[in-house]
């Protein structure tokens, strides 16, 4: 049989020829951030969410400033029976407060609390997570146990306790409470990233160049690990805002005359029979904040690391 001569043996050689790069196939080079931005903008819902979020933030900052003391000033002459107008698109409540402006003030409070709480979460989480992930060994073990312990405790209840015992109605206490109970997830994410990055080539290269541990952590690893933290933080805003609202609704958070979406709901609850619409205003606002933060978080997650995405 002429077959046995010169013909190749299975497995040893394949039919893949080497390739020269055809100029036609080169793709224009883009920086990492350009790619991130492109991917983000492709996500229609996330872009809408971003716009919505910016709108809400702007409204919550600007409108109370314009309104002056509207939204806090009570009045004996104006009440629920007064018709809506441009200055009072949602009318007045039973003690004469301009509902729309009170809503904006409440939004401002909620967003502020949410933002700062998330800052604590991100800061504390990143610090603990990076130490645990980088150091490894018994330090990691101990820190993980601590995280386990904090995670095991019923979160909302803890926040409730903290706020009730340390001072209801105190904005700082609320921020602190939410922050202190919520940092664990961020810490785990950062730790996971650090564990992964620690063995990666570019960290080994930095070490080989003689970079100190701190420099490696801060300059090389934290930027990479930030991506999941950013995503978790954005989603955390939604969580924090709702937690604060729940606290205020139950009477532990901000109390009138302070404006909060939560305590507006308490009031709306009492007056429901006569004013069924009042429940909707703070409710819809809350839901919008949550939706915006959620989609924003999703979009960021896809934009920063498309590998993470499950086919959705």
């Amino acid at each position, binding site marked *: 049989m002429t077959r046995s001569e010169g013909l190749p043996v299975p497995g040893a050689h394949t039919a893949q020829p080497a390739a020269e790069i055809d100029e036609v196939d080169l793709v224009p080079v883009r920086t990492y951030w350009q790619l991130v931005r492109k991917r983000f903008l492709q996500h229609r819902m996330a872009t809408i969410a971003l716009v919505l979020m910016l709108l809400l933030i702007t409204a919550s900052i600007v409108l109370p400033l314009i309104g002056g003391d509207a939204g806090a000033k009570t009045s004996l002459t104006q009440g629920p029976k007064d018709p809506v107008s441009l200055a009072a698109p949602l009318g007045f409540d039973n003690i004469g407060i301009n509902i729309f402006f009170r809503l904006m003030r409440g939004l401002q409070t909620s967003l502020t609390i949410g933002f700062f709480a998330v800052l604590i979460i991100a800061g504390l989480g990143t610090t603990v997570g990076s130490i645990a992930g980088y150091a490894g060994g018994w330090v990691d073990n101990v820190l993980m146990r601590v995280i*386990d312990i904090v995670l095991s*405790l019923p979160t909302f*209840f803890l926040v409730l*306790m903290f706020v009730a015992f340390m001072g209801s109605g105190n904005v700082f206490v609320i921020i602190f409470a939410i922050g202190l109970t919520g940092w664990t997830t961020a810490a785990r994410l950062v730790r996971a990233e650090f564990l992964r990055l620690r063995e990666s080539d570019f960290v080994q290269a930095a070490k080989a160049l003689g970079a100190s541990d701190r420099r490696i952590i801060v300059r090389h690893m934290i930027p990479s690990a930030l991506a999941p933290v950013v995503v978790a933080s954005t989603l955390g805003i939604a969580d924090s805002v709702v937690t604060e609202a*729940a606290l205020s609704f*139950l009477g532990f958070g901000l109390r009138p005359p302070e404006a909060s979406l939560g305590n507006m709901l308490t009031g709306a609850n009492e007056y429901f029979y006569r004013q069924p619409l009042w429940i909707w205003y703070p409710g819809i606002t*809350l*839901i919008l904040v949550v939706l915006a933060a*959620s989609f924003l978080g999703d979009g960021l997650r896809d934009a920063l690391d498309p590998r993470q995405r499950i086919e959705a």
Partner: protein
Amino acid sequence: MATYILRRLLQAIPIVIGISVISFLIVHLTPGSPVDKFRTPRVSPETINNLIRLYGLDESLPVQFGKWFTKFWTFPFDNTAWGYSFTDGLPVRDKIFARIPSTLWLTGMSLLVTVMLAIPIGILQAVRQYSWSDKIITTFETIGYALPTFWLGLMLKQTFSVQFNLFPLFGQNSFGKQGDLLDLLWHLVLPVTTLTVIQVAGWSRYMRASMLEVLRQDYIRTARSKGLAERRVIFKHALRNAMIPIVTLLGLTVPALLSGAAITETVFSWPGMGWLGVQAVTDRDYPVVLATVMIGGVMVIIGNLLADVAYAVVDPRITY
């Protein structure tokens, strides 16, 4: 497997101790002393001192902790194991145990309905990905998941209870109807709906994602290439794999069975553990607060263990 469970239980001990320490500290380090509420002009300083000694508040913190911690675990036998309530002097253990069934009715029912709805919905969405039904359901899921529990509870209450008078306004039973199952179920409808809507939104998304992930796998293509009917491919080959994360999720939901419905219970005045806890915080009823937190924590540990064990049972690739 038995060794694994044993090992996990041993590992859980330091965590339990950690939980206890933190709970204890939070309660005892708050400004003011537990006896402050008794300091009225009519109460003499001696009585206050007696109270302090009675509650053991004059001893050092570690000693107090030690005494409390050791006594805590005797609860199956001793109903004073968790102390006495500051509000009404009843044994805390009895108060809490009395509430457990109510909470379990609420959360158990919600979980049941959630699972019964979310799994089929998730499967449907995955099998009909990109279709109109998928998109519509996704929209509902997104909105549903974003609803705050207390707002939804309020809305349902106000609409169906107050406005349409279809369902009772609060509580678990109408007067004089203790033990009436139908009455209980009628009272359950609104709170369960509140919890379920949000839970179903989350779970069906999870199920959908899991199912989609599975349907992409090579072994599904193999199953089809064997000439199996699509029904069999989905419900035997795909589902069995897609359920694995769901089973783990079930395990992790166990802790929420007791502590996850505090807000809903408060909105509906449902006499459960959660509401008891919230009231206790308001009233500074520290023994009750402490016991509630501990129970919550221990349940989480049990839940995690259950989740891991369930995972090993359901996935033959996992051995411990």
